[in-house]
């Protein structure tokens, strides 16, 4: 009797899940893109609040191992920040990071992270990622999702070692600053 009740209830609930699946799916795909768009907007802002030692033109934003994110990021391509045009490039290997000012590292590159960070160490490349504990692993800006909001953390020590100047305003808004 109890089992029958449970089966009945499960039946109802599965139907219910099925019902909600259709509308939810559409929103799901949309929101994924939205998450990337918000992160792209963050990256655009970081370009405003960080000063590079070089007067290189244009500012190159590279993505590594983040193919799903790249299309959203490409929307900032062509935007002008402090008289410099942003240019977005996808790179396949870290060896191609020579011309990058900003390097966004996708989550799929977690296992290669130490060698990636080693390659750009002490060079004026702002490293950004949305993987967990990125700033603790030696990355400069980590994007985190908490309570359905996007937050960021800054490893100031690493940024300074690479001669990047991070504005106080940005530091104030960070969830955490590692010095």
């Amino acid at each position, binding site marked *: 009797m109890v089992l029958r009740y449970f089966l009945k209830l499960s039946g109802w609930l599965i139907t219910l899940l099925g019902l909600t699946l259709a509308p939810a799916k559409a929103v799901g795909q949309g929101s994924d893109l939205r998450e990337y768009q918000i992160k792209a907007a963050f990256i655009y802002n970081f370009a405003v609040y960080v000063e590079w030692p070089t007067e290189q033109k244009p500012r190159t934003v590279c993505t590594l191992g983040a193919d799903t994110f790249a299309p959203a990021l490409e929307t900032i391509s062509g935007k002008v920040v402090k008289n410099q045009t942003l240019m977005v490039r996808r790179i396949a290997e870290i060896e191609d990071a020579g011309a990058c000012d900003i390097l966004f590292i996708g989550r799929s590159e977690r*296992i290669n992270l130490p060698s990636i960070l080693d390659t750009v160490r002490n060079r004026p490349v702002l490293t950004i990622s949305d993987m967990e504990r990125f700033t603790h692993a030696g990355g400069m800006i980590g994007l985190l999702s908490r309570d359905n909001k996007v937050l960021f953390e800054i490893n100031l020590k690493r940024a300074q070692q690479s001669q990047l100047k991070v504005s106080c305003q940005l530091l104030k808004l960070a*969830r955490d600053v590692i010095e």
Partner: protein
Amino acid sequence: MNSRTITVSAALIAAILLTSAAPSRAKEQRSKPSDDLMDLGIEQLLQLDVPSVYGASKYEQRVTDAPASVSIVTAEEIKKYGYRTIGDIMRGIPGFYVSSDRNYSYLGIRGFNRPGDYNTRVLILLDGHRLNDNVYDQAPIGNEFPLNIDLIDQIEIIRGPSSSLYGSSAFLGVINVVTRQGKDMKGVEVTASGGSRESYQGQISYGNKFTTGLETLVSGTVFSSSGQRQLFFPEYAIPELNNGVADNADRERAYTLYAKLSLQELTLTTLFSSRNKTIPTGSFGTQFNDTGANTTDSRSYLTLAYRHKIEDHSELSAHLSYDNYHYYGEYPYGATSAGPPFVSKDAALGEWLEGELQYNRRFFQRHLWTVGGEFRNNFTQNQAATTLDDRRTSREYGIYLQDEWQIMKNLILNAGVRYDRYSTFGGSSNPRLGLIYRPVETTILKLLYGTAFRAPNVYELYYHDIGLYANPFLQPEKMTTYEAVYEQYFGQNLRTSLSGFYYQASKLISLVGGTYINNANVDAKGLETELSGKWANGLQGRLSYTYLDARDMDTNTLLTNAPRHLATFNLSLPFLEKRVFFSPEVVYTGPRSTVTGATAGGFITTNLTLFSHNLLPGLELSATAYNLFDKRYGDPAAEEHYQQVNGEIHTLNTIPQDGRNFRIKLGYRF
């Protein structure tokens, strides 16, 4: 029964209609072309709502790469489902079940929940700090858990043995509770709740991180409940035992204090907690329907942790702590021909110093080595009772080594071993091997092998008093486990997993006839399957089923308190632009045999929570109905729940559990 089904269905359909309407409206209002986002400053971007969903790549790497089957419960889920204790949370986790004797709660894991076992086979860590005490090895999962549930950031539940990293107690699983951080609280939080049976709880916390780099979190909680005013035990239904009714004998009181202070690489944490519970079951033959029977458990510790990064390739972490556990029990006995009434007083004091040093280093990009050592100096392990004054000390240490070897981009071998040495019984080595293969991004296959041990504790070894006898010859329990896990992600929203396991345990310690003995050789086989989904509009849910066959190999009978079937279902439905969540949770526990040879019937409990946040800034409100359909059920009783009347022994088969009850909770952040 039928009308109930209709009620549930109607409620759920209503909720569905609300949810499917709400998000689409929200979508129209909120969707913005990405160009608009570029016009927003960082302050505004920080306020935007980003629904988190999981696809395989988004799932925290730690979980998919872990050499175990892992479940995670977040702070958000704790709120949405109205969980009050760790026990409440564990009921909803596939493969787990919880039984209670209305004094303590006991965790059953994949068929193991031995009578007289005080949660000794599961390790609970609070930010990596061991909570199991050094007298009973007890993992606290009820209101004796020393931290308020509102301070939990997330709980990681690791199934199977982890003796290769944590040593004893990590026998069937590890529950790691991660606390929130001051920088995420940034201010004061107050919560108050009131519920059925005069249950009240109040909590106040403050957390912040200052520009000096100092981070702090302090919190305090008080809890009080009168419990069930009247409890009826049919086995005691004779006039001499008040016809089986215990009046006002289910009271509970608890408080917790917690403080954490971090500066750069150092973190100092201290906590103090205490809980008092009246025992309504007349356990150990004490006077039934006497409100004087009670236990008090107090737990405190002070720990200093240090974490230092060396370049980007290695990390050194260490901690040193002082731990204290105190237990005091009062057991009133009535007048007999042998003498007048008296109160048997029972006490235990455990004190220990613990230190751990761990070093992680990455080699050649492909190897992540972890080496570590841990020692524990149990300088007080004392027990006292009417005829007992047992004072003990002991020492133990363990060293471990683990390598996470990235053989190929999609293949990881995780190999580890730990050696433990106990001053009481000698050494034990326990390996663990895990092969994690990810043929495509959305598929994960895991093959796991491991062994585990559990050292007998001083209570099992040396305790003796009325009706209980010591057994200083107990040997450690041992276990060998095999498990295969298959996880498949479908798109961004759905995840399925199927796991088959085979556990072979020998010399399990059980309470038989008043003595703990190494009596059981157990084979447990099982299958666990789970479907979970999470959508961007806030909808999430899980359906799971576990089949278990845990058998005593000497008698070829099913273990007591081991259900063959477990099923869970939960769903959280958002509406009003994700400000309100309607979350039902349904748990089925199959029939279990009891120590007395009877059967505790299978049962379904349904909890329903209505949770809202952001209706006003900083305000959270929730209302929960637990056991909504008032299902009457009992958990199998261990053998100590008996009464002797005129030479005749009445033993409880089962212990009645809570019927329908409610709670309303209010939280404010400023």
